[in-house]
């Protein structure tokens, strides 16, 4: 009898006797459901935020900021420096021959979260003539664009749900008065929770003499190295040059690490608990079926087939539990819009996360089924048959 067939037969037998061990077996199912439910719920949040940070900007988008700045507001580039950067060769040109580049300024405006009144800062960014070219997904969805040179703002489509007074028609208090929000835009990314106003007018209002950064688009995707060399070799500049994507990675690295430690720390602790539960259940399953197993062995079924069948049973139960956990997390959180401070993101239960959950389930089953399987396979047949 070949091994595969043996495994198949013994496993089928196992599963047929599952109803007799229903409650015991549910320990594994419930255990894994809790582990995976908790893990994916937490991940839907942290990974949703993570991908929101990294989705901002297209691959040719380059970000230039003062050397060593850890966040955008730390950057300080004078008008002259910004001019030099934007005149550097290698930048894509607009139809009129001007470089697709513009200096950026960012300011946090104190406000409150709409849901609980917690203090928060809404990000207000300057947008110049090239702004729309540098924000590929940008389009107006309500009202109109702000007029350059005027005290007007446009708000991201999600801002009004997240913050108080951030919808079209509301006013934002800036140092030189109240700026009305005249339109709403959507970009499909993190910017959807922010505000935009005319860069130069905004600089005057908040009395900034320097920009924070320069954002630009390269003519060629591979042009970054040469462009960086050109800026780095200029003694008048002391800047970091990277893709917008890399900047976002750098900016969120600490936060990501923090999230991963918390999420996987809790997940691993719970999984170890479930693992012990799995051990327990499989040991008693093997003990309960010891005569049945001994009979099979006496009939000529191999120890290996018996062992594998135990692991397979653990695997099936564990996967069933994981599936419940996935279903819970997915139905409750997938696609839900949430925010972290001023950053708005969509919670996601991605296929990769589901794959990882199933992998965890299999790992717990293999680890938790292995020792009981060995015991089942190695128990002397005679002794097991005689046992009462």
């Amino acid at each position, binding site marked *: 009898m070949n091994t595969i067939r043996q495994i198949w037969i013994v496993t089928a037998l196992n599963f047929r006797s599952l109803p007799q061990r229903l409650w015991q077996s549910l320990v594994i199912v419930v255990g894994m459901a809790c582990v995976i439910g908790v893990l994916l719920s937490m991940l839907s949040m942290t990974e949703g935020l993570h991908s929101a940070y990294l989705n901002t900007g297209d691959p040719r988008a380059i970000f230039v900021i003062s050397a060593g700045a850890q966040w955008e507001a730390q950057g300080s580039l004078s008008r002259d420096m910004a001019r030099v950067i934007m005149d550097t060769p290698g930048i894509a040109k607009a139809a009129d021959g001007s470089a697709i580049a513009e200096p950026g300024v960012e300011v946090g405006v104190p406000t409150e979260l709409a849901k609980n009144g917690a203090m928060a800062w809404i990000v207000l960014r300057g947008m110049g003539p090239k702004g729309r070219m540098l924000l590929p997904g940008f389009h107006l969805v309500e009202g109109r664009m702000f007029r350059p040179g005027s005290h007007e703002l446009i708000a991201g489509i999600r801002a009004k749900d997240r913050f108080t007074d951030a919808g079209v028609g509301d006013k934002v208090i800036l140092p030189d008065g109240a700026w009305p929000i005249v339109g709403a835009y959507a970009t499909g990314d993190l910017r959807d929770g922010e505000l935009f106003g005319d860069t130069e007018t905004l600089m005057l209002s908040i009395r900034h003499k320097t920009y924070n950064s320069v954002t630009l688009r390269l003519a060629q995707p591979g042009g970054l190295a040469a462009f960086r060399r050109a800026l780095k070799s200029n003694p008048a500049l002391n800047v970091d040059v990277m893709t917008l994507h890399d900047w976002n990675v750098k900016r969120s690295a600490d936060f990501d690490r923090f999230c991963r430690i*918390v999420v996987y720390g809790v997940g691993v602790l719970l999984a170890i*608990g479930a693992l012990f539960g799995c051990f327990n259940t499989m040991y008693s399953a093997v003990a309960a079926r010891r005569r049945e197993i001994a009979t099979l062995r006496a009939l000529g079924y191999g120890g290996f087939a018996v062992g594998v069948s135990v692991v397979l049973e653990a695997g099936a139960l564990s996967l069933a539990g994981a599936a419940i956990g996935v279903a819970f997390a997915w139905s409750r959180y997938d696609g839900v819009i949430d925010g*972290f401070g001023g950053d708005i993101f969509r919670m996601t239960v991605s296929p990769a996360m589901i794959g990882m959950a199933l992998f965890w389930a299999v790992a717990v089953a293999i680890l938790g089924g292995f020792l009981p399987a060995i015991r089942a396979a190695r128990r002397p047949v005679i002794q097991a048959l005689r046992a009462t």
Partner: protein
Amino acid sequence: MKFLPLVWAALTRKPARAVLTLLAVTMAFTVFGLMIGLSATIDGVAEQARGDRMFSVPRFSYDDGLPIAVARRIADTPGVKLIAFQSYIPGYVQNEKNHIYLSMGHADMARVFPDWHATPTMWDLVEHERTGIIMSRLQAERWHKKVGDTLTVISPQLKRADGATSWTFKVLAICDDVLLAPDGFIFGNYDYLDKSLPLAKQGRVNEVDYVAADPARADAIAQVIDRAFANSASPTQTITEKRAYAVSNNFGGMDVDVLTHEIALAGLAMILFLTANVIAQSVRERFAEFGTLRALGFGDPSVIAMVVLEAAIPCLAGAGLGMALAAFLAHHIQAIMPPGFGLPRPTITAAVYGGALGSAFLLAFASAALPTVRLMRMDIATALSERE
């Protein structure tokens, strides 16, 4: 406690099962301790935050600071009694990833922050040795410093008058941490910082801290101050410590209390299923024994007590071990967190221990409930005739 030997015998009948159950319960309570401990920390911070202490920061450009004259005008505001101010040195140690943050203040800080453990004597040391710093224990451990060591910080954002970006300090004192600063703190001499900066950057402060004579009027004073500076070159954003550290302000406005409790509950639910099964199984195996006990005249209360005790021992022991592990992890959690990203250290307060104890008892009662009911309904004759 005359049943104890009987219960002990029941537990040790299947030592592997007892140990596995214990370990699974331990894991669930580790998660419980960490989660509820985190929640307790956040509640503790909110409670410890003072309603009379308040601070003003620049409303729009945080990193640019406020002119020191603003601090003087705040000091003259009726109702403000003690005042201090600080500026920050943001930077890194050795590697750009090792973020560090120094608060440069002066001796008045000790009066505004008497609950922080940097004493007036320590501030005196810093006053006399201008390059000296006071480190909290957490920071001292993170950077492996003891009194007398030097700490060199690179701050690309804060250049000295001569253009250098490196700042070297001498550790003069190490003090205890406070709940309000989950990431620890480092205090240095404001005057030293100020005089080291280029002339154009001198005379500015990042934050003005002060105490209201009457806590009830703190919010009103905040409004008066913000209104006074609203149309000036340096608008302020003023908030009381109580409001700033409110529970709702934690983790970007996420509902941390709900999250932590849900995770702790999921862990307990997972374990409840396991312990309930183990007890049910154990009782089922010993049906004949229980029949004998009843035949010998053991009444309902005795039998119930035995089953509950059998459930309670692993639950209580596991809860104890789990809480100990949680306390240990809580103590070392900061070492693996990214520097500069302060996860509040979970504090296992008496209330958290109480919660764990209560949960352990609930777990034991819930696990014992069904088996007890079965025993109550047991027909002695059937039970005695039943073989294992």
